[in-house]
């Protein structure tokens, strides 16, 4: 709170002087000009004087002149293609400039690439720009999540989504235009390059508040993105932050919104009832399945039901007592208590205040925001503070200077995700978690009856209460980011300017795991290290809490020098730029662990002997040493040098030619300097047909054909051409020699990944911009993709990353917008359609065994296959014993290991794509007077997935029994009625693994979804009100499926797992 007060004072003191410039002029006439965002005058704009209803139109230059009998008049300005504006004109304004922003579908936008900006009409690349209005439609914690239903060609991968992540700041997995790399997420994966204004932003996207962002531009093809060179391989997303503007009156904006989700539907994970699960336990007990655990000296955990069964077997209970003991469990479902005490509806609150304005020579913008997100898991929450101050000044005719400081902070508190419900259920699903006000203990890690009584009071309480971690989450993280930009623009000669830009970016990350003495984690370690000797208690493990810390700091310096040249003569227009960049990033982190920690006085035990062995209490284990497992220390330096140039040429605004070239070099570890420099380039052509003399259509007012070819790349500093070893910190026997393992075998052939991108597109606008859109067709070819190739195990390394694969992608992006007005009712429809598919052209690996192809999320390596192919074992039904059958050598077979390890792939069936080939949205917006209603329908088509079914391994070992259990084969003849295999004992793990990936479990994933519904109300404002605009909105998201291809009762959008819940948001924006 103190921070906010301070910032407000700062803002006011800076913006106050700007107010003065807003008022000047003579009486009785209001004059001015109305322009679009590029500075061009707009003709035929209606200006309606509200008091007397007069309507005045602007002339061809956009100028207007209004006679007034007051010195201030309130007007409403509207034009079909622009958003209406209500404002007050003063007779003192002689040179008033009003800017109207374009409605959706308008072609005269300004696009940014991070290096320069250009008019859409004159560009030859494929760009997609999302403006503020669309970004503000929904309330999200991070800006990238908003893009899913607003763009074409971008696929948001939810195959690893877990409902436990709901409400947590997570970075969405985005694939722009399909596959550009096969590297896993840990090595950067498919993540597009995110640019904030002019430089790449590599920090956590959740540090940025979406309210800071004015617009998002996606650079999709070679001509657009090749300028980013060796980092543009996965596509580029440019985030443009809000800024001040010269000659604009002071404007303040205040926004607030709150979003609430429903609780996650844990019951959509459909399992057998507790009663039936207990019957299975009974069966296993009789067979002796638990005997090993019951006899073991390490006292492993067993369920309360098994404890009772054992007690009966020993004669402690009789049948009646047993039945009575089991009864409460039969009717309890742990999800009841979990939904009551562990989960809640996630919630997001967002508040933002900004002020901006500018005079002729100076403009500024200041902003401060606060966001809080509460996760579905009660323990987790995250707070964010974002603030920004930017200034721009025209020093003189030659020099412009600009600067910005941005400070953002993220603070989270969370519990370990493993202790909660998951898509695999929860062990012992029939427990209660709370009684009255008391958190109940559940059997965990150890046998409950043992820890309940052991120690005769000498030991700390050894019970585990899951809700304790909810009440006191042990993990704290804090991320801070300070970003400072400085820019200098020099006007050297006519048409020639120089730009110098510098960015300093500082990140600080802290993570703290606090396992104080009241946590199970600490109590367990202390108890295990306790020794009772001659009536004395010896604590071999330090008595107290455990504090594990990780501190990381990253500093980044970017410097850019660029020359820009623009000229227009005799119909030829040329704009060129050339520049050089340096980038240095130092990233280091350190770990620390403190034992015997007391948070009250911050003391800890300092003389720990990590080599001393001590026995485990009660013979629960062997001899131990105190683990020295702090986070490893890291220190990574990345250096990047680049040279680049762009040239845009246009002839009479009809023929357009563009080219870019860039050379990048990096301190790629181990490779000689020669190989470190690679040139990447692009070339594009465009034809503005509507400007041709022969083009005489009155319907089509804009028609452009364009095409481009570009080469970009992907660099990964963790690759090396030499034998690379990595040092480890510690040894589990406390042997004090440093250890190193081999992480990389020599590879002299190491090269960077390259992409060739071909794109052709058509952009059009007809009927005075009431129907507009674009269609793009792209063809990508990637070379030398890094891919982990499984190696012959005799090499000593399981896999090695080689430049192994070539892939190709093809796709179509369609973006159509339609606008129609009837009197005061306005309708606009927007259709976004994407088609994308990817194929393996070549890899170095040989064909593998069938098990590699049926993996979930697996990537095929067979030339000609789709990259994301879904494979399943051929299914031949159940045999007369209820065993699943596959096909081996043209015969039905139950030799599962032979099938799964077969040399040929004819045991498999290639089903289709595991990723939707067609996806997009359809949005309808209606506005009538002060109301605006819009609805979005999203669709994902042509893909398959495998649904989950009964796994006897999970049922026996993890107490997770899928409802298909009820349909299992039970007697001969059932094989004609069901496909669910019989339960056999001892467990046939081969049958289980085979069934899990059999074709009988394949379902179509196609679905159409009612994505959101939004209602906005802009109340009429009284005349003379200081408020410029006011808007209220409510939104419902994730409303439900309209249609799905699969007949089964599962949600294909989440591949059958527990889905994201519905949410409702509401908010208000006020500008004055």
């Amino acid at each position, binding site marked *: 709170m103190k921070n906010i007060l301070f910032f407000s004072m700062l803002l006011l003191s800076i913006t106050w002087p700007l107010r003065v410039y807003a008022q000047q002029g003579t009486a009785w006439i209001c004059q001015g000009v109305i322009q679009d965002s590029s500075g061009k005058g707009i003709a035929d704009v209606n200006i309606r004087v509200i008091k007397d209803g007069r309507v005045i139109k602007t002339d061809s230059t956009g100028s207007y002149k209004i006679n007034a009998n007051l010195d201030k008049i309130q007007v409403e300005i509207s034009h079909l293609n622009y958003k209406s504006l209500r404002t007050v004109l003063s007779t003192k304004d002689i040179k008033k400039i009003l800017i109207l922003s374009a409605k959706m579908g308008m072609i005269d936008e300004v696009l940014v690439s991070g290096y320069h900006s250009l008019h859409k009409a004159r560009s030859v690349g494929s760009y997609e720009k999302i403006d503020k209005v669309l970004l503000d439609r929904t309330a999200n914690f991070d800006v990238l999540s908003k893009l899913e239903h607003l763009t074409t060609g971008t696929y948001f991968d939810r195959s690893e989504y877990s409902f436990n992540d709901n409400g947590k700041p997570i970075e969405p997995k985005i694939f722009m235009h399909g596959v550009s790399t096969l590297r896993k997420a840990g090595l950067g994966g498919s993540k597009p390059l995110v640019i904030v204004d002019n430089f790449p932003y590599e920090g956590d996207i959740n540090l940025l508040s979406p309210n800071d962002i004015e617009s998002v531009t996606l650079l999709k093809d070679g001509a657009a993105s090749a300028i980013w060179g060796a980092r543009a391989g996965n596509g580029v997303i440019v985030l443009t932050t809000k800024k001040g503007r010269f000659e604009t009156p002071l404007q303040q904006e205040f926004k607030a919104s709150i979003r609430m989700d429903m609780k996650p539907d844990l019951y959509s994970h459909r399992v057998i009832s507790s009663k039936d699960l207990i019957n299975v336990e009974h069966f296993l007990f009789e*067979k*002796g399945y638990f*005997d*090993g*655990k*019951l006899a*073991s*000296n390490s006292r492993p955990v067993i369920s309360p039901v098994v404890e009772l069964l054992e007690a009966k077997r020993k004669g402690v209970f009789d049948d009646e007592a047993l039945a009575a003991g089991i009864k409460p469990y039969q009717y309890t479902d742990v999800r009841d208590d979990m939904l009551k005490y562990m989960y809640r509806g996630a919630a997001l609150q967002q508040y933002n205040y900004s002020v901006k304005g500018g005079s002729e020579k100076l403009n500024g913008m200041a902003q401060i925001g606060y966001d809080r997100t509460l996760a579905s898991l009660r323990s987790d929450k995250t707070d964010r503070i974002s603030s920004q101050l930017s200034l721009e000044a025209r020093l003189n005719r030659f020099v412009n200077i600009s600067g910005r400081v941005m400070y953002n902070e993220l603070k989270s508190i969370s519990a370990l995700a493993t202790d909660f419900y998951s898509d695999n259920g929860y062990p012992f699903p029939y427990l209660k978690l709370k009684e009255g006000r008391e958190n109940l203990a559940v059997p965990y890690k150890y046998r409950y009856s043992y820890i309940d009584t052991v120690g005769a009071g000498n030991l700390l309480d050894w019970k585990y209460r899951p809700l304790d971690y909810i009440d006191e989450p042990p993990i704290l993280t804090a991320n801070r980011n300070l970003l400072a930009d400085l820019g200098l623009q*020099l*006007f050297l*000669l006519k048409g*020639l300017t*120089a730009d110098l830009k510098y960015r300093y970016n500082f990140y600080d990350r802290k993570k703290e795991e606090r396992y104080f003495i009241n946590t199970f984690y600490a109590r367990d370690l202390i108890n295990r290290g306790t020794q009772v000797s001659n009536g004395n208690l010896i604590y071999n493990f330090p008595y107290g809490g455990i504090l594990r810390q990780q501190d990381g700091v990253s500093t980044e310096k970017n410097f850019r*020098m660029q*020359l820009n040249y623009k000229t227009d003569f005799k119909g030829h227009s040329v704009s060129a730029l050339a*520049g050089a960049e340096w980038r240095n990033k130092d990233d280091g982190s350190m770990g620390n662990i403190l034992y015997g920690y007391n948070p009250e006085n911050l003391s800890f035990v300092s003389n720990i002997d990590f080599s001393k*062995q001590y*026995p*485990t209490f009660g*013979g629960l284990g*062997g*001899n131990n040493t105190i683990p020295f497992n702090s986070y490893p220390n890291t*220190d*990574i*330096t*990345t*250096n990047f*040098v680049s040279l680049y140039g762009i040239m845009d040429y246009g002839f009479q605004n009809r023929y357009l030619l563009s080219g870019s070239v860039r050379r990048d*070099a990096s*301190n790629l*570890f*181990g490779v000689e300097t020669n190989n470190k420099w690679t040139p990447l380039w692009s070339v594009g052509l465009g034809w503005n047909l509507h400007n041709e003399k022969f083009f005489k259509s009155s319907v089509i007012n804009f028609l452009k054909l364009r095409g481009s070819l570009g080469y970009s790349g992907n660099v990964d*500093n*963790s690759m090396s051409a030499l*034998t690379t*070893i990595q040092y*480890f910190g510690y040894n*589990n*026997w406390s*042997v*004090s*020699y*440093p250890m*190193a*393992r*081999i992480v990389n*075998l020599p590879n002299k052939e190491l090269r960077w990944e390259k992409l060739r991108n071909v794109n052709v597109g058509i952009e059009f606008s007809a009927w005075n911009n009431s129907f507009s859109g674009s269609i793009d067709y792209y063809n990508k070819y990637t070379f030398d993709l890094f891919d982990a190739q*499984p190696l*012959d*195990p*005799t*090499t*000593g*390394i399981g896999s*090695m990353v080689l430049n192994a694969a070539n892939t190709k992608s093809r796709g179509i992006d369609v973006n159509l917008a339609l606008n129609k007005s009837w009197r005061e009712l306005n309708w606009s429809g927007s259709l976004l359609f994407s088609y994308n598919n990817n194929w393996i052209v070549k890899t170095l690996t*040989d064909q593998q*065994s069938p098990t590699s192809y049926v993996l979930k999320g697996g990537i095929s390596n067979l030339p000609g296959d789709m990259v994301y192919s879904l494979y399943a074992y051929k299914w031949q039904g159940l045999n007369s014993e209820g065993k699943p059958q596959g096909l081996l050598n043209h015969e039905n077979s139950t030799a599962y290991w032979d099938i799964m*390890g077969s040399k040929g792939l004819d045991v498999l069936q290639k089903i289709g794509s595991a990723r939707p080939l067609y996806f997009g949205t359809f949005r309808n917006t209606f506005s009538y007077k002060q109301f605006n209603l819009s609805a979005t329908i999203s669709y994902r088509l042509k893909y398959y997935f495998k649904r989950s079914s009964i796994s006897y391994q999970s049922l026996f070992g993890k107490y997770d029994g899928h409802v298909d259990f009820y349909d299992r084969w039970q007697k001969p003849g059932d094989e004609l009625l069901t496909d669910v295999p019989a339960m056999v004992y001892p467990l*046939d*793990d081969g049958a289980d693994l085979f069934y899990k990936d059999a074709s009988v479990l394949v379902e179509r994933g196609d679905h159409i979804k009612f994505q959101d519904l939004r209602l906005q109300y802009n109340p009429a404002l009284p005349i003379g009100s200081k408020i410029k605009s006011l808007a209220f909105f409510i939104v419902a998201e994730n409303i439900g499926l309209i249609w799905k291809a699969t007949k089964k009762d599962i949600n294909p959008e989440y591949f059958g797992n527990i889905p994201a819940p519905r949410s409702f948001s509401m908010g208000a924006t006020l500008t004055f």
Partner: protein
Amino acid sequence: MKNKQLTKTVIGIVMMLTLGCSKFLEEKSDMSLATISSKSDLYALMDYTVVMNQSYVTAVGDIASDDFFILDKQYMGISQMSDRAIYIWDRKPLADWYWVSYSRLLNVNTVLEHLDKIQLDQKDRQNLEGMALFFRAFSYFDLAQIYAPAYDQKTAESVLGPPMKMSSDVNEKPIRLSLKETMNLIIADLKLSSDYLTDQNLTYPTRPNRNAALGLLSRVYLAMGDYEQALAISKRALESYDKLMDYNQINSGKKYPFERFNPEVLFFSIHAAENLSRESVLRIDTVLYDSYTDSDLRKTCFFSKQADGYFAFTGDYSGNSNAQKFNGITTAELWLTKAECEARLGRLTLAIKTIEFFMQKRYVDGGLMEPFPIAQEELLKLIYSERRKELLLRGIRWMDLRRLEDFYLGKKEIKRIIDNKVYSVGLKEIKTFTFLFPQKVIELSGVDQNQ
């Protein structure tokens, strides 16, 4: 004019800065990653205990031997089919973790290849080479126990040893030499290793020293039936260091009475984790258990009674309670080897002295009352009995079953009864028994599966 000058300056700076970049680009990107450039790097690779001192494969042999059994219900509860197969000598491909040995060999080959590329003084070079050769020999010997038949002079030239990797090059395919050539290579490595390494006692026996190399060499000779050599080598090692712990001093009340790097350990290593060797599952054969007399201190130090009435082995030297049991080299093994060889070679008086010295450390003070047998056969029987009682779960029983005559083993076959079904394997069959390579190896390496 001012502008033109400014322009020129700007262009000039740009050019200057772009040319001076090499150093900027040479900077190391990740400090924890390194190329192999100094002796500490080579030592660090040899000290990577996770792979160098773990995952030895004779664990499989232990399961297939007769020292231990598993209760029926436990056996049925083991979920991995390949594990269940080992116990009943059903030849199915082993699970993937029986191949980590080759990661060990990768470290060995890498170190050997870099010995000439890095500046090393004589002492370090010999030390590193000695260690590398030791690990190479131990790895191949360990693999041979499981993937090759027992060494028999008559057939050794015509049967194959385990696949061997001679370099760290990914593209080099492994080769299989005859068992005879494989053993020769192992012996040559160990001889060289014992020359290079010093006999200094190391704080951490995870590194081998000369005595460890000699100890292993004597085990190898024993496996080949060369009693002369085995005797000479074990004597040499014992002359340098022969300490035995007196079990009278061990607190048998503790469940795990032995410390990890105790004075008997010449080299410390542990087996691959094996589901069936878990303490909760494995029980010592009742007849074997009864063969420990009441004055045998090992009866209480090695075993803990379980709830099911049988006994689990808790006396191994790994200091752990999990399934990875100690399989390294101890002085106790050398004493037993010496006694056996002396007896085999007819030097019975010496043999008696040796075994008596050994047994004094294992039996209650003054508990060794009975007179020692003086006939060779009886003496050998006694020595083998002690050997079996001492070297439990170290991969040595499997080796002994394959090299000893039925007469000394006292049986002709091993039999198990599970759920009223009888499984058995003749000792003759065991001598030529080979386990099958894991599936992945066959798919990717070009090596043919064992027949």
